[in-house]
Each structure stands twice: as structure tokens, then as C-alpha cells.
């Protein structure tokens, strides 16, 4: 099985730390030659994932681009110059993504408790105890939510983003529904009301608690005025993100979140429409 050399790892590390985009070509190549064979084996081990190795690999590349620093290279605040550990971490990322895609494809139960012939082959050199993250760390998630809400000098940015995230977390919505739902809920809310939405929905999530101190700081930020003298808390969501007068438009946030899948759905719909047009009688 082809793995990367220590030298290749160090070239990548150096390129990434310099902000050199070539670092992503190096990371892409390292990931592909290290993981692709195994991903193909996993995909071939379950009939509903056969042929999906390129899709899994693409998701893995994206995930590695986004989390290589926070997830491994600087995970504990110091440079993690450990090529073998990086390889194990990449396998863990790949395995998690493969399992997610497999679940989605087969609509499996979220947790598999029963080992069967359907199980993908184990990779001996993965240190699952060290890197495999199965359950959410709700205490940490609570801290992250608070940290995000407390950050930034422009409160509407983080407030609306968190509100959208909460809508998704609480909503049991698929991607298409989330667009309609979020547009419906947030379009006419003021920032004060968006904050109320966040508080109300956070209250319904057992592990999420927004402290009174943080709430006070957020209200103080919303009481400030913008460059036009308007109180930020009184401005509407649509004033910030929506095309005025066009209720059908969706916010940047939803577009960013749904991105490619909405495009795929639209493409699929167009294809279906084209198919309908190509009926035998030509109508």
C-alpha cells in the first residue's frame, strides 16, 4: 500500500504554514495515495456503496482541507510534526466520512451494534482509541456555541449564523426544507427577535445553556447603532441578508450552507424536466 514519506509530509507542512496554495496539491496527493485504495475496499465491501469511492475521496479531501490544522497539525496549540499520526488521523477522517455516506445511501440506523459481513475491513494501523470520535462532547459544544455568540464586533453576523445553525439542529429538516423553513422564519425578524429565537431554541436543547452574562453582552451589542444611526437590534434580518422586496430570495447563509446540494437538486429537476419533454410523442 502506497503511503507518503516523511519528506513529503514536511514539504506539505512547510507549504501550508507559508500560506502556499501548493500545500493543498501536496495534501491532495498524499491523501489520495494513502487512502484511496482503502476507501475503494470499504466501498466494495457493501453493495450499496460500490462505485462511490470517488465521492468519498472528494468529501475526504474537502474535510482534510478544512480541518488539517485544527484537527491535527495544531490540535493542541503546538505544531504536530508527526507523519505517522497524520496518517492515522487521515484514516479516521476517511472512515467517518465513509460511514456517513454509507448510512445516507442505505438509510442505516445511526449506530451499528451488530458486526456482520457488511462491516468494512478494519485497518490495523488505525489507533481508534486515540482518534476516533463517536459521540458529541456536549460540554465542549456548549462552550463553542457561547464562544461563537460572544465573538465579533458585528453581532448580526454571528447571531444570525447561530440562529440558522440552531434551526437546523432542532428542526429535523432536510436541505431543501431548511431553505424554505429558514427563509420563512427569519425573513422579517429583527435582530432583537433573532436573539429571542436563539434563546428560546437554546432553552429547548438540554445541553445548551446561554449564560445571563453573555445574554447581557449580546443585548448591549444590539443596542449600539450603525453608521446610519439605526439601532442594530431593531434592524431586520432581511435588511442585512435578503434582497429587499423579494421574499422568495434566500439568504447568503442558507446558500452557503446548502450550496452544492441545492445545485444538484436543481440539476436533477432540470434533467427530469428534460426527460419529460422527451416523451415519445414529442410533447
Amino acid at each position, binding site marked *: 500500500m502506497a503511503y507518503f514519506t516523511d519528506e513529503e509530509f514536511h514539504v506539505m507542512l512547510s507549504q501550508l504554514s507559508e500560506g502556499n496554495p501548493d500545500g493543498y496539491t501536496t495534501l491532495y496527493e498524499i491523501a489520495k495515495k494513502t487512502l484511496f485504495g482503502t476507501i475503494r475496499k470499504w466501498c466494495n465491501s457493501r453493495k450499496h456503496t460500490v462505485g462511490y469511492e470517488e465521492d468519498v475521496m472528494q468529501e475526504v479531501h474537502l474535510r482534510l482541507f478544512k480541518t488539517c490544522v485544527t484537527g491535527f497539525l495544531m490540535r493542541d496549540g503546538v505544531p504536530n510534526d508527526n507523519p505517522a499520526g497524520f496518517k492515522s488521523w487521515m484514516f479516521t477522517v476517511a472512515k467517518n466520512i465513509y460511514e456517513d455516506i454509507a448510512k445516507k445511501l442505505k438509510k442505516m440506523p445511526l449506530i451499528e451494534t451488530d458486526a456482520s459481513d457488511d462491516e468494512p475491513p478494519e485497518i490495523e494501523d488505525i489507533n481508534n482509541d486515540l482518534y476516533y470520535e463517536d459521540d458529541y462532547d456536549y460540554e465542549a459544544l456548549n462552550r463553542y456555541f457561547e464562544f461563537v455568540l460572544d465573538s465579533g464586533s458585528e453581532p448580526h453576523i454571528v447571531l444570525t449564523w447561530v440562529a440558522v445553525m440552531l434551526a437546523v439542529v432542532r428542526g429535523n429538516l432536510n436541505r431543501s426544507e431548511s431553505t424554505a*423553513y429558514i427563509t420563512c422564519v427569519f425573513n422579517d425578524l429583527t435582530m432583537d427577535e433573532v436573539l429571542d429565537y436563539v434563546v428560546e431554541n437554546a432553552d429547548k436543547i438540554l445541553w445548551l445553556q446561554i449564560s445571563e452574562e453573555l445574554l447581557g453582552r449580546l443585548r448591549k451589542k444590539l443596542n449600539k447603532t450603525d453608521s446610519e444611526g439605526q439601532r442594530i437590534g431593531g434592524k431586520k434580518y432581511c435588511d442585512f441578508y435578503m434582497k429587499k422586496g423579494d421574499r422568495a430570495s434566500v439568504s447568503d447563509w442558507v446558500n*452557503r450552507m446548502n450550496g452544492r446540494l441545492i445545485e444538484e437538486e436543481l440539476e436533477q429537476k432540470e434533467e427530469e424536466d428534460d426527460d419529460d419533454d422527451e416523451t415519445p410523442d414529442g410533447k
Partner: protein
Amino acid sequence: MTTMKHLTENEIIDFVSMNSINQESIGLAAAVNSHIMQCDECREKVKAFQAVNDLAMDKLVAASEITRTEIKKEEIIKYETES
């Protein structure tokens, strides 16, 4: 002493919400990752945004596999009827 320009919330949100690999997203990833390799403050911030985003994305994917609640369906129908 040099002054480091910190990442904005918009840059962080764009980075954590990246959903495809292209020239633009690689440029953004290169800029953000090189910055957070040096800047503890922004790295913690990116980690926090990533955690919240990942949770939402997990729920979004899971939601496509489970039965939708009647409440949400009603809210969407109401919206579609109004607009």
C-alpha cells in the same frame, strides 16, 4: 512587534461552510490555515465555528433519513401559501 490582522467572522464562516474544492476555496483555505497556524486566538475561533457547523451539518444529513415532524411541514406549507 508586528501586528497581525485577525480573521473576520465572515471569513471564518466562509471557510467552515466551504462545500467544494476550487481555486477560490483553496485560496481561502490557504489564507485561513496559514493564519491559524500562527494565531492561537483565531484558531480557537475557527475551532468553535467548525464545531457548531459540523453539528448542524450532521443533523441536516441525518434529517434526510428520518421522518419529518408535522410541525415543520405545517410551517413550510403556511409560508408557501402566504408567499
